[in-house]
């Protein structure tokens, strides 16, 4: 039995999510004016994702492999009421991938150095932008528990179960992109943040306290086209 092919797909692994609650006004300040912060219990959220892109496939051919990435994102509703994410930054260790993300997907991508070290079950990720700006991130994490899918109407579902992203194209075009994947399987994680100037560079500088952490071993997702709203 065969099904449709995803012309583009990415396989992600070792995904660490760090989530901070923030005031909706702080999120609104960094969003395109046509997207509304999505909130749960009147709180908006900003998340940092550290992950490895194992494969980036076009038409079933792996065109890029083993790219490290760190994303800073927040949560929005589109004007049509769909849940989506908005990327505040999307850093990758591959120059061509960064270029493709900027020009083809209109995402705020940068080419960065990332050092990922694993010792026993603990992973350390250190990111440094290559543009000379003092934008760094240091994270250590260690998964705990076992991976499960998120329960509906939970904070985890609010943060993870989204298959759309918004961005702004040329001439201020409002764009919505989509990804398709099985439900995230996540587990708790014990995580600590050591450097956060990357977040300042993304325009969010008021993240207080310990983040909520999730970890997912891997997911494969199809990447769809960007559509104007």
């Amino acid at each position, binding site marked *: 039995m065969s099904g*449709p*092919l995803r*012309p583009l797909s990415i396989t992600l692994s070792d995904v660490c999510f760090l989530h901070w609650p923030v005031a909706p006004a702080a999120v609104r300040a960094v969003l395109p004016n046509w997207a509304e912060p999505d909130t749960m219990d009147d709180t908006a959220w900003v998340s940092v994702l550290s992950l490895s892109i194992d494969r980036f496939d*076009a038409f*079933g051919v*792996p065109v890029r492999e083993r790219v490290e990435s760190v994303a800073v994102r927040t949560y929005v509703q589109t004007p049509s009421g769909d849940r989506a994410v908005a990327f505040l930054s999307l850093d990758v260790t591959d120059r061509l991938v960064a270029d*493709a993300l900027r020009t083809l997907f209109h995402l705020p991508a940068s080419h960065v150095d990332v050092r990922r070290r694993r010792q026993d079950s603990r992973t350390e990720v250190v990111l440094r932008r290559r543009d000379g700006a003092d934008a760094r991130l240091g994270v250590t994490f260690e998964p705990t528990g076992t991976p499960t899918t998120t329960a509906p109407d939970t904070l985890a579902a609010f943060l993870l179960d989204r298959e759309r992203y918004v961005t702004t194209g040329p001439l201020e075009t409002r764009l919505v992109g989509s*990804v398709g994947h099985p439900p995230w399987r996540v587990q708790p994680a014990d995580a600590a943040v050591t450097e956060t100037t990357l977040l300042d560079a993304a325009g969010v500088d008021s993240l207080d306290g310990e983040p909520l952490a999730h970890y997912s071993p891997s997911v494969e997702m199809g990447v*769809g086209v960007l559509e104007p709203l």
Partner: protein
Amino acid sequence: MEWRNVLFAHWPVPVETVARSLPEGLSVDTFDGSAWLGVVPFRMADIRPRGSPIGRSFYELNLRTYVTLDGQPGVYFYNLDADDRLGVAVARRLFRLPYYRARMTAHRDGSRTRLQSVRTHPDAPDVRFRASFEPTGLPEPARDDSLAAFLTERYRFYVADDRGRIYFADIDHPPWDLQPATVTFDHNDLFAASGFDTPDSERIVHFSPGLDVTAGRLHRHG
């Protein structure tokens, strides 16, 4: 992924015709003293159906020939036209694969497939293509050392970027099941788009219902 509903239409051409079209480093692979040009449309699908709205089924259309590099036989693609704007853009941007955007429509009428493709890629030679094809016999694997095996049993492909650098990837699939087939070309600009005259030699036509295929990583040669 799966390659389904595959037409192989091949023409023998003089070795020199193909040799002068190849990037430096690739050698013409010959059978019966001829080089071969192939026109191959097929449908791409996913062997792992998932309930995602992202995936879809679509055709690819290529003009190809057969080459060796360091003694390794393979397929060399002059073009890969596909009806997916973003996939084509990423394939070109991230690995300079010779993909071109095209608008394609396919209709199945019993065992007959009618396929129309119009290249929409900016700043590329126009390609209009309209053909219908149909298997006429039972599928069977190509015999060893046969022309059919020379034309289809290839497990490496080569492409060149705009600077003539050669890339290759290995592909893995079971042997093709091939059927005799008929094809009618109402329009075919693929030869002209790659600088060839349409061959006046007799064409060899095969059809395959398809197979599962896995592509390995692309490597730069040298």
